[in-house]
């Protein structure tokens, strides 16, 4: 998942939901590398952490300026993602808990925000949103746009 302020759109938050593994960063000559931040969603399962490791390597190759981990479906006693984050020298920017409300929303085919707006998962995603806002604000501010226009992407 990628979060970016797309310069030629003005102050727009662009969130790209990517496939695990980022194989398609090759699309259009790797256009998707032009992002402000990459959030790697990792779940405390071996397969997910293997994919996250690959994604970290790709992100490093692409010189994405900010990379952070979002731990998803974690229980309070899970520490596999902490160990992984430490090994990859990555910050865990959010911890979305394993949440029955998410499961129930998905079973009902509904958006979690509509189905369980007060759920623990939504509270944590809301916190993540505020955190991203604080970190990326300079990019969407007037100065950020001026700089971006002066040096547009190809």
């Amino acid at each position, binding site marked *: *998942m990628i*979060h970016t302020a*797309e310069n*030629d*759109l*003005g*102050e*727009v*938050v*662009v*969130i*790209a*939901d*990517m*496939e695990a593994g980022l194989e*398609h960063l090759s*699309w*259009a000559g790797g*256009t*998707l590398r032009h992002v402000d931040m990459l959030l790697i*969603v990792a779940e405390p399962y071996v397969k997910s952490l293997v994919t996250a490791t690959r994604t970290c390597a790709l992100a490093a190759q692409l010189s994405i300026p900010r990379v952070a981990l*979002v731990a*998803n479906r974690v229980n309070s006693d899970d520490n596999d993602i902490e160990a992984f984050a430490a090994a990859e020298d990555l910050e865990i920017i959010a911890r*979305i808990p394993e949440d029955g409300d*998410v499961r129930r929303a*998905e079973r009902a*085919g*509904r*958006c*979690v*925000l*509509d189905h369980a707006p007060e759920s623990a*998962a*939504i509270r944590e*995603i*809301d916190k*993540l*949103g*505020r955190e*991203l*806002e604080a970190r990326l604000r300079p990019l969407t501010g007037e100065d950020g746009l001026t700089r971006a226009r002066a040096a547009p992407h190809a």
Partner: protein
Amino acid sequence: MIAANLARIMARRGHLVVAVDCDSDPNLALSAGVPPRVAERMRPFLDQSGGKMTFPRGVPAPELIRDYGFAGPDNVTLLLAAQVEHAGAG
């Protein structure tokens, strides 16, 4: 789930949000609360005609959004990058 809900939360916080589903098995619109029958009307913006996925040449982002953007809940603009249309295509 995270991208869809984050997009709507950012929109509620006053941002103009464009959410792009880049998964070859797309479900961002559904996760954001768009009913399946409505979501299936979305058209992918990547040109898949040559067997390879490419951006439509020379189309500025605002135009891409005007032509392919789909107004979702909380005014999030949803974009679909690609969709495997038949077996063997992807």
